[in-house]
């Protein structure tokens, strides 16, 4: 998602017509399901808290988005990567056949889904 400033100024050659379309799509998804962005954030946080009880989530890679192919087909699509190595302590009952190795492709109708490249080296190595 573009930053506020990027959206204000338009990205490069981006015209206000396509900005209008993007903003409308975003606002209508929330209007139609009667869930404000704020409530959505609260829901995300709660989901992540529950999952965190069992596995170690890679917080910075989480993507939970609302998508809509039409008015009557709304879904929440969540991509929540976690680190099995760091999960041991938190998640004694973790399933060994985790989907992490074979992530399901997102359905074609999603507009906000972030395509994470698999097995990329850590972009932000932390000093140990």
């Amino acid at each position, binding site marked *: 998602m573009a930053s506020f400033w990027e959206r204000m100024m338009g990205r490069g050659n981006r015209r206000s*017509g396509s900005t209008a379309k993007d903003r409308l799509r975003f606002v209508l998804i929330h209007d139609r399901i009667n869930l404000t962005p704020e409530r959505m954030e609260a829901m995300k946080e709660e989901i992540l808290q529950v999952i965190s009880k069992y596995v170690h989530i890679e917080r910075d890679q989480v993507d939970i988005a609302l998508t809509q192919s039409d008015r009557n087909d709304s879904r929440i699509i969540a991509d929540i990567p976690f680190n099995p190595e760091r999960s041991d302590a938190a998640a004694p009952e973790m399933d060994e056949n985790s989907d992490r190795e074979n992530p399901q492709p997102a359905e074609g109708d999603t507009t906000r889904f972030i395509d994470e490249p698999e097995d990329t080296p850590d972009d932000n190595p932390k000093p140990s």
Partner: protein
Amino acid sequence: MGAKVVTITSGKGGVGKTTTTANLGVALARLNQRVIMIDADIGLRNLDVVMGLENRIVYDLVDVVEGRCKLRQAMIKHKQFAELYLIPAAQTRDKTAISPADMVQITNKLREDFDFILIDSPAGIERGFRNAVAPADEVLIVTNPEVSAVRDADRIIGLLEAENKGPGKLILNRLKADMVKKGEMLSADDVTDILNIQIIGIVPEDEQVIPASNSGIPVTLNEQSRAGAAFLVIARRLMGENIPLNPTENNSGGFFQRLARLFGGQS
């Protein structure tokens, strides 16, 4: 079953509901249809002035509902068309003066004598909107290529579905083709893409619309007007003719895309 009841609504105010109602009335009358227009915007009536009939009002819709006059007495005949009538709204009352059931009853009495009953809905989503939509066989949603108007149109579409009045059909009013070309305005394709409903008409921005309402002569009577031509197209499509939207005004999307939509999207 006689007349088709068509309600013109929008959610947002100021997008051109009353102008659209007046012009569709005139366009249908020009196509030899028997038409009656009902102004359901009680307290803020305007269809009478846009039609140039404000000096002929004796009785109004609320007088009919409350039994002060016969239905026939509230019908004002247009100066030019023998088969074009208006029932004006009351100006000094509010939306609660009539009910959805009243509207159904009144339109049922009119159905036999007309081909089209056009209802000009007030802005908003409250009682006035529900009154206007209750008797509708078909709902036309007027919007402008602007974020706020499209958002409100989407809300209306949702409410129509909840009331089993179908998704309705879209009229995109005040489109500026040159701005669309520059990418500074939502195109017709953008709007139908977002709202995901069928579009029945695209009305271009036209400087002749305001002089027309200044003088109380709907722009459809002006042969030079591009907006007038667009309203005639919508009228013919309302009558079930399978004619193009307005290919010269719709600059977005490819020609074949438009062609495909035209043949694929017609019910």
